[in-house]
C-alpha cells in the first residue's frame, strides 16, 4: 500500500490552501485527490468578480482566485491525482480511491483533510408539486453549462430561491440574451448579498418576490410554465395569489448542503445544524488525524474565509503528522443559543489552541443593533454591538488563549445574541 503523510480529499479552494499550508509547515509527502478533470473546484465556473478582497486585497474572478492557489501547489511540487473518486476513508485513515488510469487502490494516510465542498439542494428535497419535465436545473448546474461548457439551458427563465448563485445566474442568463421573468423567494428576506440583489436583479429590472414559492410545474416533455404563489407566515401558499409564468427553464437556488457521505461512512461525528463534522480547535474531527475545512465543514459565503480556515487545517494536520496524537488537555465546550445557531469549532483544548482562535457562527434571523455576547460559564466576557446581522453573513468572535487560561476551571463558552 502507498503511504503519504497527508491525503487531501478535494482539489477546490479548501484542498488547495490546505495543501500549500501543510507544505509550508514542512510536510513532504502530500497528495490531493480530485474528482474533476482539473484543480480549482467550483471556482472554475464562478466567472463573476468579487473574490479575494480579504486575501489578495483586489477583486478577482473565481478562475483567477483558483489559479493563484493552483500556481502555489505547482510551485511547491505537491502531488495531485485528477479524475479520481475517493470511495472510502477508514477509521485508521486508509483511503480507497479509483480512477480510469490507476484502477482501484488504497493509500495509508498519516493525516486526512476532508475538503469535499458542498452540493446544492435538489428538487427532490424541495417538495415542489407538478410534472417532472426537462428544463429544471439547479442554479450551479446551469452555471457550469453556461460558463464552462458554453450551452444555454433555455430562453425564458424563472428562478426559485434568492441565494447568491441564483442571483448571479439571473444576471448571467440575461446578459446571454435570456428573459429572466421573476425570482421567487420563500423567506421574507433574501439570503443573497445586497450587492447581488442590486447588480444582478435591479440593474436589469428583474422582480424579486419575497415570501413566494413555486406551487405548480407544467410540461410533460419540456417545461412550459410554472405557477408561483405568496406564502403566509407558516410558509403555506395563500389561495388566490397564484401567478402563472410561461417559461422553458426553472433554476433552483435553495441552499447548499455539505457533502459528507465519505465522512459519515468513516464514522465522523456530524452536527445536525451545519450538516458538517463536529470539530475541535484544530479543525480535527472525532477521528484523530482526520481534519475538515471549507464548505464540507460548514457552508461559507466568502472563499477568503475558506482559504483561511483551510490554511489552519493544513498547519494542524502537519502538526499531527510531526508530533503524533497528543494527550488531551483541558477541554472547554462551545454552545450557541438565543439567536446564534452553531459554532465552529465545537470544543477547545485550551493547551493546544493558538494564542488567538477565530470562532465562526451564524445567526438564525435578521438582527439590527443587537449584541454578540460571549459567556465564560455564567459570566459575560464579551458584548459587542453590531448594526446588522443576517443569516446569510457568517459572524465571528476571536478568543484569546490567555483569557481562557485565566478563567481557571472554565467548562463552557456560550455565544448568544442579546438585544441590550
Amino acid at each position, binding site marked *: 500500500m502507498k503511504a503519504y503523510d497527508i491525503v487531501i480529499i478535494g482539489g477546490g479552494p479548501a484542498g488547495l490552501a490546505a495543501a500549500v499550508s501543510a507544505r509550508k509547515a514542512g510536510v513532504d509527502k502530500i497528495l490531493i485527490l480530485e474528482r474533476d478533470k482539473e484543480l480549482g473546484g467550483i471556482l472554475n465556473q464562478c466567472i463573476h468578480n468579487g473574490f479575494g478582497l480579504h486575501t489578495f486585497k483586489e477583486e478577482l*474572478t473565481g478562475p483567477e482566485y483558483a*489559479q493563484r492557489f493552483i500556481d502555489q501547489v505547482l510551485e511547491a511540487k505537491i502531488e495531485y491525482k485528477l479524475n479520481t473518486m475517493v470511495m472510502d476513508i477508514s477509521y485508521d485513515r486508509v483511503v480507497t480511491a479509483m480512477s480510469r488510469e490507476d484502477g482501484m487502490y488504497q493509500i495509508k494516510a498519516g493525516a486526512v483533510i476532508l475538503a469535499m465542498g458542498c452540493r446544492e439542494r435538489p428538487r427532490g428535497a424541495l417538495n415542489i408539486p407538478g410534472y417532472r419535465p426537462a428544463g429544471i436545473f439547479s442554479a450551479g448546474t446551469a452555471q457550469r453549462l453556461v460558463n464552462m461548457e458554453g450551452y444555454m439551458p433555455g430562453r425564458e427563465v424563472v428562478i426559485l430561491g434568492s441565494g447568491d448563485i441564483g442571483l448571479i445566474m439571473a444576471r448571467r442568463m440575461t*446578459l446571454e440574451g435570456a428573459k429572466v421573468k421573476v425570482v421567487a423567494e420563500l423567506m421574507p428576506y433574501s439570503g443573497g*448579498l*445586497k450587492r447581488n440583489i442590486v*447588480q444582478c436583479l435591479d440593474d436589469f429590472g428583474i422582480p424579486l418576490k419575497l415570501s413566494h414559492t413555486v406551487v405548480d410545474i407544467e410540461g410533460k416533455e419540456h417545461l412550459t410554465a410554472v405557477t408561483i404563489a405568496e406564502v403566509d407566515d407558516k410558509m403555506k401558499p395563500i389561495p388566490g395569489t397564484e401567478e402563472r409564468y410561461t417559461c422553458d427553464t426553472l433554476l433552483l437556488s435553495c441552499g447548499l448542503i455539505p457533502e459528507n457521505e465519505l465522512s459519515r461512512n468513516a464514522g465522523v461525528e456530524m452536527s445536525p445544524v451545519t450538516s458538517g463534522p463536529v470539530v475541535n480547535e484544530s479543525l480535527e474531527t472525532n477521528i484523530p488525524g482526520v481534519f475538515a475545512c471549507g464548505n464540507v465543514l460548514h457552508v461559507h459565503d466568502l472563499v477568503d474565509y475558506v482559504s483561511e480556515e483551510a490554511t489552519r487545517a493544513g498547519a494542524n494536520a502537519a502538526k499531527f503528522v510531526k508530533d503524533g496524537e497528543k494527550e488531551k488537555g483541558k477541554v472547554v465546550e462551545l454552545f450557541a443559543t438565543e439567536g446564534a445557531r452553531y459554532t465552529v469549532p465545537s470544543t477547545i483544548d485550551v493547551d493546544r489552541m493558538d494564542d488567538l482562535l477565530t470562532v465562526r457562527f451564524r445567526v438564525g434571523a435578521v438582527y439590527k443593533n443587537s449584541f454578540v455576547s460571549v459567556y465564560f460559564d455564567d459570566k459575560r466576557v464579551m458584548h459587542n454591538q453590531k448594526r*446588522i446581522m443576517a443569516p446569510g453573513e457568517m459572524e465571528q468572535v476571536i478568543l484569546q488563549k490567555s483569557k481562557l487560561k485565566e478563567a481557571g476551571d472554565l467548562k463552557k463558552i456560550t455565544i448568544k445574541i442579546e438585544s441590550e
Partner: protein
Amino acid sequence: MEKRELTCIGCPMGCQITVEMEDGEVLSVKGNTCAIGDKYARNEVTHPERTVTSTAVILGGDKPRVSVKTASNIPKDKIFECMKEIDKAAVKAPVHIGDVVVKNVAGTGVDVVATREVAAL
C-alpha cells in the same frame, strides 16, 4: 427636480436611499446611515459603472470557452454593447490570464481580458 430611489450595497443593512437631483447635480442624499451610503449614492446617480464578466469562443483550446472580464469598470449603459463585442470575439489557444481578448471594448477605453489559463490542444 428628479428623485431616485436606491438600495445601498455597502453592507447587509441595505439602506433605502433617496437622492434628489436637478440638471444632473445631486441636491440631497437621504436615508443612508453612514458615509459609505452617501458616496455610493452620489456615484450611482452620476456615473454608474460595472465590471462585466462573460466567456468567449476559444479556438484549438483544451476547454470549450475562456472566461473573460473588463479589465476595469465600464459605464453601466455600455454593458450590452460590451456583451455583443465579446460574443463576436474568438481567440486562439493558448491563452493566459490577462491576455487581451477585445481591445477598447464599446469605445470605453477598457480592454476585455482572459481570466483563465487555456492550453492549446
